């Protein structure tokens, strides 16, 4: 597998991140316990509209999605647009790519802007684990469908007669993988053991995430990125006063049945979270005509997937392969980035990815390089905290990361000049991963 610089140099034009808005993320069953995905996505859109004066504006396209989705929400994004102050003539569509949903909506829309197909767009994502769909068993569902099709009394009785008491129990939503029946945490626990990631390293990463997110809140960094919702004014999962000592007291929750010592706890894993995020995108011309300051350009993106079912790679390791391909396409190395954002599904996910990139063996045998792919300076990693502290409403995480780092890139450029770059990496269920390059505008 030869990695070469193949990125086209004649890209028609830039796609710009112009701003973002999210609602504070809340812990499952918390402030948004009775808010639906549509409620939260609409609230995030409304905040964006208010911040950027987009009332009655016909946006080129709005794309968003949710991972845990009710069947009634087949047109979730369009319904949210209709409930917002945007022009009702704004088209919209739904996207679903597990935890990469939010970033995938952004990449697709950015590409349309680059092609000249759109002048403006809003990407987004939302998830509620509080208002998750509850599904009936397959046996009950089939029986009920047969009943609805039955014509005679005998057929109806036959359909009803097939229902057994145990069929009536609802099927709770689950984040376990359909092919392995292992939860995401259990999958990561295998990878954690594989890469020898220690408890201490995970707790330390979690602590830094909380400290940095808290510092950003205290500095007012999120004043123009977040709009309060239902009384929640700050990310509900943030623990400003946590410490290594406190994190060390938590009992391991994943990997307890593996041979290796279990290291993953509630403190170094993301909790179930509710929330929504949006990102405003546009062309240079559209930004100028609306008096909006471009924050960053979406340069490129690369999706990846690993064969976690049969192969040796962990469920959440796809970015370890996608990032080297993405960077090679642009002739870049990790050293060319001012910021690296790796979604903290688990502290160990980030650490396993970094370990893979630092491994000469992995670099040679899996990436086809001469040696290790590279090292990420921890000072540049998740500089304003990430999902361990903020929480992780699956589809909303991409928008949170992009809006945060786009603002940071813009501030950095204003301060130091140049064109600093950021790398964004998000792992997802199904062995998926999506990665992207942003540069300051």
């Amino acid at each position, binding site marked *: 597998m030869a990695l070469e610089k193949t990125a086209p140099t004649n890209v028609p034009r830039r796609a710009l991140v112009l701003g973002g808005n999210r609602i504070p993320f809340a812990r499952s069953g918390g402030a948004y316990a009775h808010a639906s995905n549509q409620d939260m996505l609409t*609230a995030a859109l*409304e*905040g964006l*509209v*208010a*911040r*950027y*004066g987009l*009332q*009655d504006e016909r946006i080129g396209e709005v794309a968003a999605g949710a991972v845990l989705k009710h069947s009634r929400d087949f047109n979730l994004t369009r319904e949210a647009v209709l409930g917002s*102050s945007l022009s009702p003539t704004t088209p919209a569509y739904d996207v679903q790519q597990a935890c990469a949903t939010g970033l995938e909506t952004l990449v697709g829309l950015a590409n349309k802007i680059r092609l000249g197909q759109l002048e403006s767009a809003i990407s987004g994502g939302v998830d509620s684990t509080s208002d998750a769909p509850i599904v009936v068993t397959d046996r009950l569902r089939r029986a009920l469908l047969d009943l609805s099709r039955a014509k005679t009394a005998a057929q109806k009785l036959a359909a009803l007669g097939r229902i057994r008491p145990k069929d009536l129990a609802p099927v709770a939503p689950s984040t376990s993988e359909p092919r392995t029946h292992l939860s995401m945490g259990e999958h990561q626990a295998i990878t954690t053991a594989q890469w020898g990631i220690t408890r201490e390293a995970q707790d330390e990463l979690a602590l830094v995430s909380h400290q940095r997110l808290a510092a950003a809140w205290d500095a*007012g960094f*999120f*004043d*123009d990125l*977040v*709009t*309060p*919702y*239902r009384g929640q*004014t700050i990310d509900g999962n943030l623990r400003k006063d946590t410490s290594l000592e406190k994190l060390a007291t938590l009992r391991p929750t994943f990997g307890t049945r593996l041979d290796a010592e279990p290291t993953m706890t509630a403190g170094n894993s993301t909790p179930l979270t509710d929330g929504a995020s949006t990102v405003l995108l546009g062309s240079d011309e559209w930004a100028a005509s609306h*008096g*909006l*300051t471009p924050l960053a350009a979406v340069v490129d993106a690369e999706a990846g997937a690993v064969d976690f079912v049969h192969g040796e790679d962990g469920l959440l390791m796809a970015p370890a392969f996608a990032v080297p391909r993405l960077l090679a396409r642009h002739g870049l190395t990790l050293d060319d980035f001012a910021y690296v954002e790796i979604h903290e599904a688990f502290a160990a996910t980030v650490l396993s990815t970094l370990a893979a990139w630092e491994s000469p063996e992995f670099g040679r045998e899996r990436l086809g390089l001469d040696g290790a792919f590279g090292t990420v300076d921890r000072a540049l990693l998740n500089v304003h905290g990430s999902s361990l502290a903020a929480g992780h409403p699956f589809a909303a995480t991409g928008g949170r990361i992009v809006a945060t780092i786009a603002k940071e890139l813009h501030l950095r450029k204003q301060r130091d000049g140049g064109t600093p770059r950021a790398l964004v990496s998000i792992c997802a269920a199904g062995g998926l991963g999506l990665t992207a390059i942003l540069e300051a505008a």
Partner: protein
Amino acid sequence: MPNPITTTLSAKLSELLGFSPAAPLRRWAPGQPLVDGKVLVLGSGAGPDADADAIAALLSGSPAEPSATPDASGDEVLDGWGLDVYRHPVPDERYAAVVVVLTEVDHPGDLHAPLLAAASTVKKLARGGRVVTISRSAADASPAVAAARQGIDAVVRSIAKESRGGTTANGIVLADGVPVTAASAVGALRFLLSTRSAFVHGQLLPVDTTAGALPTDWDAPLDGRVAVVTGAARGIGAAIARTLARDGATVVAVDVPAAGEQLTAVANGIRGTALQLDITSPDAGAAILEHALTRHGRLDVVVHNAGITRDKLFANMTDAQWDAVIAVNIAAQLAINEALLTSGDFTDAPRIVSISSTTGLAGNRGQTNYAATKGGVIGMVRATAPLLEPFGGTANAVAPGFIETEMTAKMPALPRQVARQMNSLQQGGQPVDVAEAVAFLSSPQAGGIVGRTLRVCGQHVVGA
């Protein structure tokens, strides 16, 4: 919305306390006639009165005439307001408004004819009627002239205390050299005649200079102007944002980040922009200016409405309670004004309007910290206005009395009912009443009102 249960309780309570029921006040809406009925314009005496004639001509003139075309004498002819104007009181006639032009009185003896003529009409004024005097400032006048002029102020306040049925009485006090047809004299007269001034009562509004300009459209005087309103998420601030937008302004709604959800609703409702900002941060002025300039291309009006209370008896006042109120209510305003004044981008007839309080005029038990800031606002606008004058700008304050807001709704029922009744209109004002006064002082036609504080209090008993 008023709660029917508490409203009923309040009515019962005020009945028990021996208060008469308050007359409902009419508020302004676009398209409403300026005055709904006949207008009587009285001059200073029996002889010819050029000022009264000019006012009568303005009020009765045809609104369709082209604006500001010089007539044969070279004087500007103002667009008329098309009202049904009478120059002499007709017995038993019902007037909607009485305008008494007293600019030519030289002695208290001169007050007899115009005021007693007005007195004969007051009993039959329509509900929600208007009595407006136009007089001159007593400052620097000779003893007899000063006595007459100063007397008028007290007469207006007395008429206000006698008025019933939601009728208001107010006066316009012109500085020497300011003609009755000056932009701000005309602007003030229109404001006081209209329902925009529903809760302004017993007030003397000074017009200091001939600065200012009449709007092209009286229903949209802020057309093309960009206004910033702090504390815009709720209550009076939200009403100000909506009223400025209704009058044509593009509004930047500012509030603390924690109030962002309500702020979003306000901004989206008026097609403005929301700016979540802690106004006490050192770069707040720069942030406001940058937002207004990049998004809307200019900044013309700043309304300092954000305020907090940390009530405590003086003897028990803590450092934190004192400091927080000073920081938000006055220090932030001074810093923002400083940033705007030194920017070079706040120079096209700019307006600063700051919210004071009757507490700032009269003091209030348990509010020494708040009083320091609300009195401070009055001093601040007086000193700031001259700095803006070279640009055709001005700074003024509005001092609300008891206004029905979420904040006052939390008061215990009895003190709240008493507080409502402590003014001549015998009711609390609405947030929009404060907003209308702010909108007027933000408008081009208020450019000649320099560093003043306008009370919107229904003639509250304290500090008048």
